[in-house]
């Protein structure tokens, strides 16, 4: 539950909070605080849910279908991106009942290659634009980056916010940038807004950033780039799930959540699904509303899936390297 008591309740009234710098600041600072100890304790206690057998099989397939299979290296080549695309479509060549991943996530210059690689499948192409991962470029450059990716056919844009502006309290600047990027996405691409939660430092900031992103029109809010020390954690993801839950209660608008970075094992992924299930609810248990930004996670999910199917643990040579 996240609305401050003085907050307007109707959806149209929420747009008033972005009328000026001061109204926006007042709104964000009026959000209920986050007690760090309590938040982390809740995340930890949900992590003790024991998920076995049928529930685990369901969770593994769901998690696979939620993966944004990602390659974001300076050394990316078309060959690497094509390999990634093929894996996204058929994650486990030995078992065609394995669901496809949600998307492949690449740099803008690789979007066209990725589109070709996943053509004819359900797999979306996401692209990190807006001067990823630092976000330190002029707005014009960021928007050109976005248009480039959208023009090449990207279905989803993962933008980073200007953390410097956010930490300086310049919320309006961050808001305006997100609005502009959303506009550049047009109607064809969904926008994921990355906060780089590790740099925002406090849970209060993460809650404010979540609301800021949603007010500005984010389709997804995403924890991090995967390029800093602290990325997705159960606690910051729980917090963001509370934010989307409350935002929908206030506005009727549903926003997705994407934890990214640091989720490597099936066990971890299942814990995140438990957070989704018990916080935002089953409406979010779908790859339209929840994603994992993770590259190494998929192979562990596949190995666990094979183990459930065969009763044996096969090992890393029985899944494809990226």
């Amino acid at each position, binding site marked *: 539950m996240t609305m401050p008591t003085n907050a307007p309740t109707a959806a149209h009234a929420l747009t008033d909070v972005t009328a000026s710098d001061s109204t926006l600041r007042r709104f964000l600072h009026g959000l209920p605080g*986050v007690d760090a100890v309590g938040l982390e304790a809740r995340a930890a206690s949900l992590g003790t849910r024991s998920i076995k057998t049928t529930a685990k099989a369901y969770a593994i397939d769901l998690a696979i279908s939620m993966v944004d299979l990602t390659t974001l290296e300076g050394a990316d080549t078309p060959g690497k991106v094509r390999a990634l695309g093929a894996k996204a479509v058929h994650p486990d060549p030995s078992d065609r009942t394995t669901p496809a991943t949600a998307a492949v996530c690449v740099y803008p210059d690789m979007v066209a290659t990725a589109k070709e690689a996943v053509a004819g499948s359900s797999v979306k192409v996401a692209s990190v634009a807006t001067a990823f991962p630092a976000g330190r470029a002029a707005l014009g450059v960021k928007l050109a980056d976005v248009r480039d990716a959208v023009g090449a056919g990207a279905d989803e844009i993962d933008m980073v916010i200007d953390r410097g502006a956010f930490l300086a309290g310049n919320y309006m600047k961050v808001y305006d940038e997100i609005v502009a990027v959303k506009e550049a996405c047009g109607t064809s691409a969904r926008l994921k807004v990355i906060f780089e939660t590790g740099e925002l430092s406090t849970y209060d900031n993460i809650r404010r950033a979540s609301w800021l992103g949603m007010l500005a029109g984010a389709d997804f809010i995403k924890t991090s780039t995967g390029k800093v020390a602290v990325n997705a954690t159960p606690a910051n993801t729980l917090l963001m799930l509370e934010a989307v839950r409350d935002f929908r209660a206030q506005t009727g608008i549903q926003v997705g959540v994407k934890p990214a970075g640091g989720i490597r094992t099936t066990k971890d992924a299942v814990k995140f699904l438990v957070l989704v299930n018990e916080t935002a609810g089953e409406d979010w248990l779908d790859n339209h509303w929840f994603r994992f930004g993770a590259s190494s996670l998929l192979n562990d999910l596949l190995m666990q899936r094979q183990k459930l199917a065969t009763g044996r643990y096969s090992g890393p040579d029985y899944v494809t390297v990226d």
Partner: protein
Amino acid sequence: MASVFEYAPAPESRSIVDIAPSYGLFIDGEFVEAADGKVFKTVSPSTEEVLAEIAQAGEADVDRAVKAARKAFVKWSALPGSERAKYLFRIARIIQERSRELAVLETLDNGKPIKETRDADLPLVAAHFFYYAGWADKLEHAGFGASPAPLGVAGQVIPWNFPLLMLAWKIAPALATGNTVVLKPAETTPLSALFFADICRQAGLPKGVVNILPGYGDSGAALVAHPDVNKVAFTGSTAVGKEIARTVAGTHKKVTLELGGKGANIVFDDAPIDQAVEGIVNGIFFNQGQVCCAGSRLLVQESIQDELLESLKRRLSTLRLGDPLDKNTDIGAINSEEQLTRITSLVEQGEAEGAERWSPACELPESGYWFAPTLFTNVTQAHRIARDEIFGPVLSVLTFRTPDEAVAKANNSAYGLSAGIWTEKGSRILAVANKLRAGVIWSNTFNKFDPTSPFGGYKESGFGREGGRHGLEAYLAPSSPEGER
């Protein structure tokens, strides 16, 4: 498209615990039958299955046990503190080693979820023995005189809500200070205490230092009244506490009573709402609300009442009630049929008084004793459900407008054991906490326990403190040697 994420059952194996068909009394290091041969049955509240037949202590058994404890006291109290510490450390380590077995046992006998016995009860039980083991050789530095002496034989009577934890709260400080013990566990939950007797033997504890006498109220009454008991420690209902106070009045027995409560959980409008909701849930639904310090009165600032209640109801809808041995169960069974009847009757009174009752959609198992998590709104100070301890998963919601009103309402209770304050404003936490008449006050959390922290109440919640350095005081005579009692 997503089907509901149904967690498959994840039951803890009960084969890890080996429950014998019958148990005796533990006197002078041996399991013995009751002098009059009386026995009673202990059942599992979640299934009504009979777990074992237990010997029932009568007056003659109490006398035997107190004599054994008196005899053992001579040597035990003469041991250097560091030697007593060795035994306590050993007991603590055995508890850790056997914690899974004990957690399953406790869940079977008590009905509380394995999640709680595993993650809360057992770690705290071991922690209490470790903590007081550390004090055993430092008593002269505890602030109770230069050479504090033990009192003698402690007669201890504990309740059924945290059977093993209450045993630890009682036995650990008693042994650390050099006293010997005769303990009566509750009639509905004697098993873990009897397993503890076995742990005492495993640890090589000298005979007679710990004696366990299962039985009903009359066994407890005989123990409390025994002339050769020097110290009485009781945790349980206020009614029985008053009875004990009457019994020991005029004797030289030292007494501590830890009784009922009707804790106020105060949520201000600037609280961290999501965490407050968790705290409210933990405050009243932990151990099915069968907690003396439960936050059973929610005092919420009027301005956020609606949204807080909406959040709370949504959260309650995610609570999982059922088989306590399932690792995913949040709410287990009520401890006994008698307690279930009491809860049911108080809740019916609440409805009759005009308070609004709400429970999440929740299927109750067919056998066993169950009560759905329940919320009462439109409650006033004049309602019985705002005044009487229900000792069940029932939350009464009241409102306030100003901090003064919150304090006045919180203190307007015959009890004074616990309270909670939820606000992001540090100065308000301190200001309000200073005005609350309660033994434990949590801020932005609830139901947190630690062996280093003293626990106890004001008014009808009892007197004396358990836990921490303060907990030693109840078992020490500052300057008078044992002979002067």
